[in-house]
């Protein structure tokens, strides 16, 4: 467009400016305005006529006298049309934007609220602020590496993600998992459910004003995270449950550690129920707020504790049992009213039931191997690599190209702390998935927000949203 490159470093020339023609008070006549338009909008004029030399080359600046804001600031023009009488309508409707940085949205959820006074007429959830393309990433990772990817989706229950992914891959492969590995998986995921629900009750209490609840919830979750750290080496994103079993056996003395968790969490749950259940402010803010009927829950795909609080009697651990969970006794708590209070009560009871499952796992932990002995899936023990050529080859193949899964498609779902977490895995026979789709529970829950919140008032948005326990990493993936 222009002959003289004006962004050459150290070569910026002092511009020879021929200012636009116009009157001296700064306003432009028609010709000047057209020329300014040509220069700045259409770009048909040599654009270095007002370039300024800087360290990084020539910088363009707007001419002062055509910037309307500057004209108003310098007093040349007066902006007196900020009150436009005919556009003011005589009702109270307004649009309120909430998020994505609002602390009560538990992440980066954004809500558009249309309000009449304080009543919500319409609400629109806007998501995607945490989208990182994990489904696309999964296509570039081998089946062994995939665990590190999926564990980051729902970051409050990473082990549930890993379990679902591992079960899907094992279905494709057709490998059997030893009983001890299955029991360890149940132990870890149920502890993870308690940890996830504890952080939920902490943030839920905080959102509706019970600030001490937040400290208690985080304190008790710490006991579980310390156990996770001892077993897996990490507090989050463990990559502990892998296709073929788990990464390592439980450490020495794990029984005492789990007993210690019971002491902390079991006593804590009684305290929290004393703290909240009789609190009139808590009850006022939760009872009858954000009601979801069973039919709505089913139509919108809402599952897990939120659907069970509405009275939908469905738990994947009972309906489609996985990883040997059918051998443990536990009850599925159900709500009657589908409101925020019922969601709180259901989750509190779920934590007790999870403790019950973990107690049974503790008593009946079978001996044996913690991963399958199929050498095509599991790397050989370190010792064998020095002795056996086959082991060396298997080890090398596993960590370079990974194992291959036969062609096929599976849908595997597990009961995550937030509902049905499903993975649809398509293989074309290679060592990487052709397609991995993750059906996350929070995505469906966020979608059902308008059903629950229409005709409520603004403070109830906070209480309802907190009671749904959405994790935005889970929504956006």
């Amino acid at each position, binding site marked *: 467009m222009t002959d003289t490159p004006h962004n050459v470093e150290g070569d910026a020339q002092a511009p020879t400016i021929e200012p636009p023609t116009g009157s001296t008070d700064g306003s432009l006549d028609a010709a000047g305005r057209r020329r300014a338009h040509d220069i700045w909008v259409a770009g048909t004029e040599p654009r270095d006529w007002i370039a300024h030399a800087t360290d990084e080359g020539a910088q363009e600046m707007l001419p002062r006298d055509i910037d309307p804001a500057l004209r108003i600031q310098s007093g040349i023009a007066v902006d007196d049309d900020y009150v436009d009488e005919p556009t003011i309508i005589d009702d109270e409707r307004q649009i309120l934007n909430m998020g994505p940085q609002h602390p009560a949205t538990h992440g980066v959820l954004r809500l558009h609220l249309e309000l009449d006074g304080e009543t919500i007429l319409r609400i629109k959830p806007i998501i*995607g602020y945490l989208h990182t393309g994990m489904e*696309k990433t999964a296509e570039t990772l081998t089946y062994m590496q995939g665990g590190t990817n999926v564990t980051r989706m729902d970051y409050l229950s990473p082990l549930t993600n890993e379990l679902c992914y591992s079960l899907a891959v*094992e279905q494709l492969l057709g490998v059997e*998992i030893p009983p001890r590995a299955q029991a360890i998986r149940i132990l870890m995921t149920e502890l993870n459910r308690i940890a996830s629900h504890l952080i939920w009750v902490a943030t839920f209490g905080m959102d509706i004003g019970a600030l001490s609840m937040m400290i208690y919830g985080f304190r008790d979750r710490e006991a579980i995270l310390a156990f996770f750290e001892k077993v897996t080496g990490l507090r989050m994103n463990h990559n502990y449950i892998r296709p073929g079993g788990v990464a390592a056996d439980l450490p020495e003395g794990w029984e005492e550690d789990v007993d210690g968790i019971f002491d902390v969490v079991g006593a804590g749950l009684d305290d929290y129920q004393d703290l909240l259940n009789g609190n009139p402010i808590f009850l006022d803010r939760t009872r009858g707020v954000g009601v979801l009927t069973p039919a709505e829950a*089913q139509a*919108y795909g809402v599952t897990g504790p939120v659907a069970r609080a509405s009275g939908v009697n469905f738990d994947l651990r009972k309906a489609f049992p*996985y990883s040997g969970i059918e051998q443990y006794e536990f009850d599925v708590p159900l709500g009657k009213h589908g409101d925020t209070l019922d969601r709180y009560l259901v989750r509190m009871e779920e934590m007790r039931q999870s403790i019950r499952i973990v107690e049974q796992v503790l008593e009946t932990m079978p001996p044996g191997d913690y991963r399958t002995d199929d050498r095509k899936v599991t790397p050989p023990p370190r010792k064998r690599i020095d002795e056996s050529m086959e082991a060396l080859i298997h080890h090398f193949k596993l960590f370079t190209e990974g194992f291959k*899964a036969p062609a096929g498609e599976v849908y595997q779902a597990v009961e995550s702390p937030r509902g049905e977490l499903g993975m649809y895995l398509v293989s074309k026979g290679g060592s990487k998935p052709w397609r991995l789709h993750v*059906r996350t529970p929070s995505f469906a829950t966020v979608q059902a927000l308008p059903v629950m919140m229409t005709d409520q008032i603004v403070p109830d948005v906070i209480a309802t949203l907190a009671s749904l326990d959405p994790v935005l990493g889970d929504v956006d993936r």
Partner: protein
Amino acid sequence: MAEETTPREDPQEMDEIVEETAAGPRPNDPILAGLAEGFPSVVFTSFNPLVGPRQDTATVSRGELISFVGAVKNAGFETFIDVCSVDHLNRDPRYDVVINLLSMKHTQRLIIKVGVPGDDSTVPSISQIYAGANFYEREVWDLMGIAFDGHPDLTRIVLPDEWVGHPLRKDYSVGSVPVQFKGSHKSS
């Protein structure tokens, strides 16, 4: 669950099991048999994995999708679970839209597949039948570029509005980030 099914030695056998049952619905399943009567052109397949429940799949043409999904809902599949899509790239039709439904009453799942050609990638929307399909169809449109006829608000959902392309398509490269410090390090 594992002891109920027959263990398989060779994972390759999985394909054969699918083939064997591809002729029609399993006779011991009354719900699917009833559906097959009303829709003779729908192909039912069934797959028994080593662990976990049986997986039933129905392959439907685009024209029949709405009436079939309506019939499936009336047959007791009241819960919406999922809509997703798969890009098979060199296959004809190129895409599959996969609808996942659940019957809590009968404790049964049904996966409905619709083939979508690459040069005319539209599918009728089921969001009038299952309200929950709304966001999921937007996600498929956003990431795979399959349009849904009759969807109330078919806009991008997880990507910015001005994004160009549909990343989950197989011909969309993951791209790369230029390396910032490429030059050799000055050794002292």
